[in-house]
């Protein structure tokens, strides 16, 4: 997109199409769906964090009142050790949904029951007898990495180790990223800051628990209704884990009550399918909140060491980092993405980053909004702040001096195309928030955020109804208003009001493959497919008009929802309603679809400004003012773009101040509920101001960049830097809870 395009629909704030259903309670979320004759499925979960399973006796449970099926690990097909699609190891995934030889975390599924009521299913679970041999749980990075550590997986060797490991280990992989000669470059630095940071496991905390209904028909087809970010992913994973063809599974996504990356894998879905196969009845499974916390993906706890050097004029010269990420019970943390994200905001030519993916006896991590990024950038942006302070340069000026811009080679490899970091920093410097006076015990901090954003596979179809209204079908669950952004793009191309476009989320048999709602990709990538499909419809509309007028198609233009004659032609314009009504007589119904693998996802950058007030007596930290400034490329629906900025900021504030999984010495999760795992509530937060910057992504027809993930990358450091300015103390361990803040204040008094 070379120059700014003017839009009629895009950039407006219509009411979302699914809005009335959601405010009236009519919208159907995962747990809202039921079928006649349905059974309830429940899961028996490990009470231990690490143990060998010696035996599982389900006979009493099978004979229990109302029980129609009982399954455990032996009921799943064997999956070969090397079975992977490059992202997901299916052997691990199968063992995560149902334990085999060992249980690896508190809450690991052992068996599942389907019975005629929830109560009877729960009673049957109590009759399953499991014999364990307890093993020492591995609960920290130090324990996992120590020589002679208890090993979780006897066949795990370190990938990427140099030299390759011979013995089994808890380090699943080692990655390295870098260029230039950082050691030589550090020698030219005037100031060097070298610090270590730790963060704890945190949970996505979506309000809607995982839920599924599965029904297996006599012909072997399984129908799945569930809450998910990716119905095609559910189909593929269930097929792999259960040894079925994809065509034997149809997945219908419900409305989804939040995910943030946590609903991009399977937990109860394969169990429900297996239970329905065994019982011949539909099976519904809904996780409890405790199950969600104990056994669905948190984000990694981390230990990250960052060293950065700069010259007195404020030029960054070198950086190194060592990053350890907890993967949970099975390999696969987002350490690589974290490493790629760490220094991405800056023009840094000499650096080296080492990253380690470490297994331990905690739930397997899942993606959480910009997976791997927030903890990495907490470390790097804290060090940036300390450097600016030592150099006595304004933190915005310091960042501007080193900011990534077009043509700079990113630390993660490619050269940046047009990006908007500098625009967000300049907007922050000019923002009234940055100049406002602070009160007693208050401090202001800054953090920059970055995320790559994804493209991947999308399919969309646009169909014209007989009255000139349109339907847009995609296969991406709408997690935050994307239906309306897709409808806005179709409306823009067709030239009709967005209210005359009905967006629909299809199931896996009504639309071609779509990758999931994740990676900030839906408005960007599926939007591209919608635009292309709508353009094909417009082409068809022009052809129909040309046929009606008896002219060549290139003599027909399309403006404001009407075919208009070009070059002084004298025909009366034909509106979309007229052409649609006559479609049957001019060639048939008008519909088009587009499938693509979207390339050119533009990274989005943010600058967040945070003011905190610290109670010096209690160490309680309150965020009193917050401003999120981010480049959206082009905001299709500004209201929902702002909402992404605000929601990400709130999650980041929670991560910074309150949230952490707490495990006891045996590895039991001590806070598996919203009372003790406290996400921010309304009274914890101020209004979160937003400023949308629009530096168009040159590789999207409207200039769109994904916006969903970047907003959680900046806040951790912004809060920590604000806290430093309020107290003089630097906190490098999350969460920055009152006892830690008090200790830190004491240490600088």
């Amino acid at each position, binding site marked *: 997109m070379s120059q700014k395009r003017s839009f009629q629909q895009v950039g407006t*704030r219509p*009411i*979302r199409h*699914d*809005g*009335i259903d*959601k*405010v*009236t*309670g*009519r*919208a*159907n*979320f995962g*747990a*809202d769906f*039921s079928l006649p004759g349905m059974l309830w499925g429940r899961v028996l979960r490990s009470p231990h964090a690490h143990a060998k399973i010696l035996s599982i006796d389900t006979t009493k449970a099978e004979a229990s009142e109302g029980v129609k099926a009982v399954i455990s690990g032996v009921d799943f097909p064997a999956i070969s050790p090397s079975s992977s699609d490059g992202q997901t190891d299916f052997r691990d995934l199968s063992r995560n949904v149902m334990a085999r030889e060992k249980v690896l975390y508190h809450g690991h599924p052992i068996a599942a029951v389907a019975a005629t009521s929830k*109560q009877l299913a729960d009673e049957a679970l109590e009759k399953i007898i499991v014999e364990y041999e307890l093993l020492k749980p591995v609960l920290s990075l130090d324990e996992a990495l120590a020589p002679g550590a208890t090993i979780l997986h006897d066949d795990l060797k370190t990938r990427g180790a140099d030299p390759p490991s011979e013995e089994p280990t808890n380090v699943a992989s080692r990655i390295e990223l870098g260029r230039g000669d950082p050691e030589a470059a550090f020698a030219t630095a005037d100031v060097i800051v070298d610090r270590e940071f730790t963060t704890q496991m945190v949970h*996505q*905390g*979506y*309000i*809607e*628990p995982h839920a599924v209904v599965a029904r297996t028909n006599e012909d072997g087809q399984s129908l799945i209704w569930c809450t998910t970010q990716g119905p095609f992913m559910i189909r593929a994973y269930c097929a792999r884990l259960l040894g079925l063809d994809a065509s034997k599974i149809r997945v219908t996504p419900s*409305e*989804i*009550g*939040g*995910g*943030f990356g946590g609903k991009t894998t399977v937990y109860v879905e394969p169990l429900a399918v297996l239970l329905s196969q065994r019982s011949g009845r539909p099976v519904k499974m*809904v996780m*409890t*909140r405790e199950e969600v916390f104990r056994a669905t993906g948190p984000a990694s706890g981390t230990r990250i060491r960052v060293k950065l050097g700069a010259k007195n004029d404020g030029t960054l010269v070198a950086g190194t980092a060592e990053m350890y990420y907890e993967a949970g019970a099975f390999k696969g943390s987002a350490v690589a993405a974290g490493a790629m994200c760490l220094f991405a905001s800056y023009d840094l030519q000499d650096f080296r980053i080492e990253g380690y993916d470490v297994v331990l006896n905690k739930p397997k991590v899942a993606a959480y909004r910009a997976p791997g990024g927030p903890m990495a950038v907490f470390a790097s942006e804290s060090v940036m702040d300390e450097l600016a302070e030592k150099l006595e340069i304004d933190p915005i000026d310091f960042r501007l001096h080193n900011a990534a811009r077009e043509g700079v080679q990113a630390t993660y490899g490619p050269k940046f195309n047009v990006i908007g970091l500098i625009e967000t920093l300049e907007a922050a410097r000019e923002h009234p928030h940055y100049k406002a006076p602070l009160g007693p015990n208050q401090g202001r901090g800054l953090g920059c955020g970055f995320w790559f954003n994804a493209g991947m596979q999308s399919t969309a179809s646009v169909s014209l109804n007989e009255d000139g209204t349109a339907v847009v079908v995609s296969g991406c669950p709408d*997690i*935050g*208003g994307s239906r309306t952004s897709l409808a806005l793009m179709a409306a823009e191309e067709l030239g009709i009001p967005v209210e005359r476009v009905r967006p629909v989320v299809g199931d896996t048999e009504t639309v071609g493959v779509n990758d999931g709602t994740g990676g900030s990709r839906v408005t960007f990538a599926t939007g591209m497919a919608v635009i292309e499909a709508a353009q094909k419809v417009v082409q068809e509309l022009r052809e129909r008009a040309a046929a009606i007028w008896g002219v060549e198609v290139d003599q027909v233009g399309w403006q404001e929802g009407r075919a208009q004659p070009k070059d002084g032609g004298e025909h009366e314009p034909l509106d979309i309603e007229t052409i649609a009504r006559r479609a049957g007589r001019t060639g048939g119904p008008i519909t088009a679809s587009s499938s693509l693998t979207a390339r050119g996802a533009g990274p989005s950058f943010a600058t967040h400004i945070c003011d905190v007030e610290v109670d010096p007596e209690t160490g309680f930290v309150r965020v009193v003012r917050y401003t999120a400034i981010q480049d959206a490329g082009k905001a299709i*629906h500004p*209201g*929902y773009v*702002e*909402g*992404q900025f*605000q*929601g*990400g*900021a*709130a*999650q980041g504030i929670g991560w910074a101040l309150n949230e952490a999984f707490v495990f006891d010495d045996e590895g039991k999760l001590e806070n598996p*509920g*919203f*009372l003790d795992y406290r*996400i*921010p*509530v*309304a*009274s*914890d*937060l101020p*209004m*979160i101001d937003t400023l949308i910057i629009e530096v168009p992504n040159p590789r999207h027809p409207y200039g769109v960049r994904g916006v969903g993930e970047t907003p959680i990358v900046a806040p951790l450091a912004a809060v920590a830097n604000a806290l430093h300015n309020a107290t003089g103390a630097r906190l490098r361990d999350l969460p920055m809870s009152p006892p830690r803040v008090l200790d830190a204040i004491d240490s600088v008094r």
Partner: protein
Amino acid sequence: MSKLHVQTRVNGEACEFLCDPRQSLLDSLRDELGLTGTKEGCTTGDCGACSVLLDGRLVCSCLVLAPEAEGREITTVEGVAQGEALHPVQKKILEHAALQCGVCTPGIVVAAKALIDRHPNPTEEQARYWLAGNLCRCTGYDKILRAVLDAAAEMRGEV
């Protein structure tokens, strides 16, 4: 265990159902009466997604036993709009884009209605503390607060 017969009024209509004595009002509303607008987020009274009014008082329906509904008046999210006319809170939530995933929205609608019924002119702080029991993980609450305060202003005839 034999079931209990409960007679109550739900959203202005006389209503009766059978329930297990241990069943929560939330489960009865959803499983016995098919009123799935009331959502389950935690079953421990921490998230507010299942907020309903019981004799006009805001409660988490997961913490109320279904038999306690005997002879009482219940309002769920399904009873907030008057026919096709949305309640001002519902309208303003839509206008302000004050929902993303929308699973907390029914509870917020019920809680905000209760707030405005009791305090027609709430301050932002009052509204924040009143809604502190309704968790939203998507919005950061900003747009929700603006919508609720705007709805209150409209109901006072100030807009």
